[in-house]
């Protein structure tokens, strides 16, 4: 089966991205492209460079070199593009502890340019979609990690971004919530949203992703499609990369 030809520019294109952190290369010569409606899983062991990559894509960190194109425009020249186009769930979903769930959503909406009735509608819709009604008036500081994760997801989805950047989205979620998260991601992709998520769980990738990119020591080791029943192959590839590199390093 041949993959369809995309005439529109990819929603996201990374070209030779490099970034050093704490004196060592965290991301090296990373090039990737992502089309609307695709779900890409960034897979890698701890410290592989997944979060650094996602932080750069979200605009929270500047690359040392390389280019990021968002919907065909230079993202590094126009970081304000993130406001409308990107929804980001950082690792551990940081919150303003003294604000309630509703206040969080309002603050995120305003930061993304929503106001008035548009903000209220978006807030109501996302609270219903993520079943946050019982938590709506609760302070973010007293939420459990799983609840914070759901709040972070709601904030990322509030303005209906074209690109969803999720750093370890299944962290701290219970199995029911993980299933709901997978459904949500597939729904977003079906609506044309591109999703890039990081994980170190192979099951996460095979369950929701169309494509997978395996990172190790900051560089791309493998990129390809994910098919049903691919779990064993993917597992083999992943362990080969991780073990070979470990052996080389030793």
């Amino acid at each position, binding site marked *: 089966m041949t993959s369809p030809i995309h005439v529109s520019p990819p929603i996201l294109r990374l070209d030779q991205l490099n*970034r050093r*952190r704490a004196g060592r290369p965290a991301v090296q010569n990373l090039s990737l492209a992502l089309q609307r409606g695709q779900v890409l899983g960034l897979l890698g062991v701890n410290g592989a460079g997944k979060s*650094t990559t996602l*932080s750069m894509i*979200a*605009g*929270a*960190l*500047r690359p040392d070199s390389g280019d990021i194109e968002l919907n065909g425009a230079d993202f590094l020249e126009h*970081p*304000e*593009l*993130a*406001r409308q186009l*990107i929804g*980001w769930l*950082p690792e*551990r979903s*940081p*919150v*303003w*502890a*003294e*604000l309630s769930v509703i*206040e969080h959503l309002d*603050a*995120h909406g*305003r*930061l*993304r*340019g929503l106001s008035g009735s548009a903000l209220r509608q978006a807030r109501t819709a996302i609270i219903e979609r993520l079943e946050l009604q019982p938590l709506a008036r609760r302070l973010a500081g007293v939420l459990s990690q799983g609840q914070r994760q759901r709040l972070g997801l709601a*904030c990322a989805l509030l303005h209906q971004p074209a690109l969803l950047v999720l750093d370890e989205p299944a962290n701290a979620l219970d199995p029911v919530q993980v299933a709901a998260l997978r459904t949500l991601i597939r729904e977003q992709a079906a609506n044309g949203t591109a999703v890039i998520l990081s994980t170190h769980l192979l099951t996460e990738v095979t369950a929701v992703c169309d494509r997978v990119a395996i990172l190790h020591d900051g560089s791309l080791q493998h990129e390809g499609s994910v098919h049903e029943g691919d779990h064993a192959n993917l597992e083999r590839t992943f362990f080969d990369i991780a073990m070979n590199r470990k052996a080389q390093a030793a």
Partner: protein
Amino acid sequence: MTLFAVMRLELRRLFVRPLGWILAALTLVELAWRFVLLLGNFLGTQIRLAALPSGPGFTDMVSVPLLSSLLTGGMLPFGLTELALLIVPLLAMSTLAGERSNGTLSLLFGAGLSGGSIVYGKYLALLVWLLLWLLLILAMPLSLAHATTFDWGKLAAATLGMVLLLAALAAIGVACSAFTAHPAIAATASILLVLGLFIVQLGAQAVGIDNGVINWLALPSHLEPLLRGLVSTTDVLWFVLVVVLALALATRRLNADKERG
């Protein structure tokens, strides 16, 4: 637009945190007590003052001493100026250091905000809080406007001085908060920096050096004339310079954060 979104977010956070309310309540109680004592002293010396051809009035003896103790040679410690040296750094300490320590600074960057929007939004929110605080304090002498004669010009100059002082202290506080992830370090650095500006000329004066540059650097050299009713462009410019410099440093530091990670 985004600047106002940041400002609104920060204002909300300032108003829901207990720290702001506690500081406001304690300082208002202290200043109300100070006001009552100053008023008592003014009323007690009424007969003597009436005999003087151009003796000090309500503004000189109550309104302005309420705003500062050290600079007006007042009989009571801790006027608004002296309290502001402590409470502004405490209020400003979390503006950026807190965001950095709990990871929410990256959320602001991730929303496409520049370092400048974040710094100015937070600074304006802090300034709004401080101006409301100042308004409540000024309401004490103003509540007697119907019963006494005000020197409105002098009061306006002193108020301008207070507004400029609070603006400068807030900018220094935000700048110190931009350079660390620990709010306590930000507050300590800010208090020490402000105290330094307050006393920088004292050492030189003690050894007989009345250098123009050192005097120009000192905060009291620019605040004192305003409290005495003298408004000069040089003094106003000094405060504006401090604000601009502090906010520029904070913005630069925040942009470097995004570069460095």
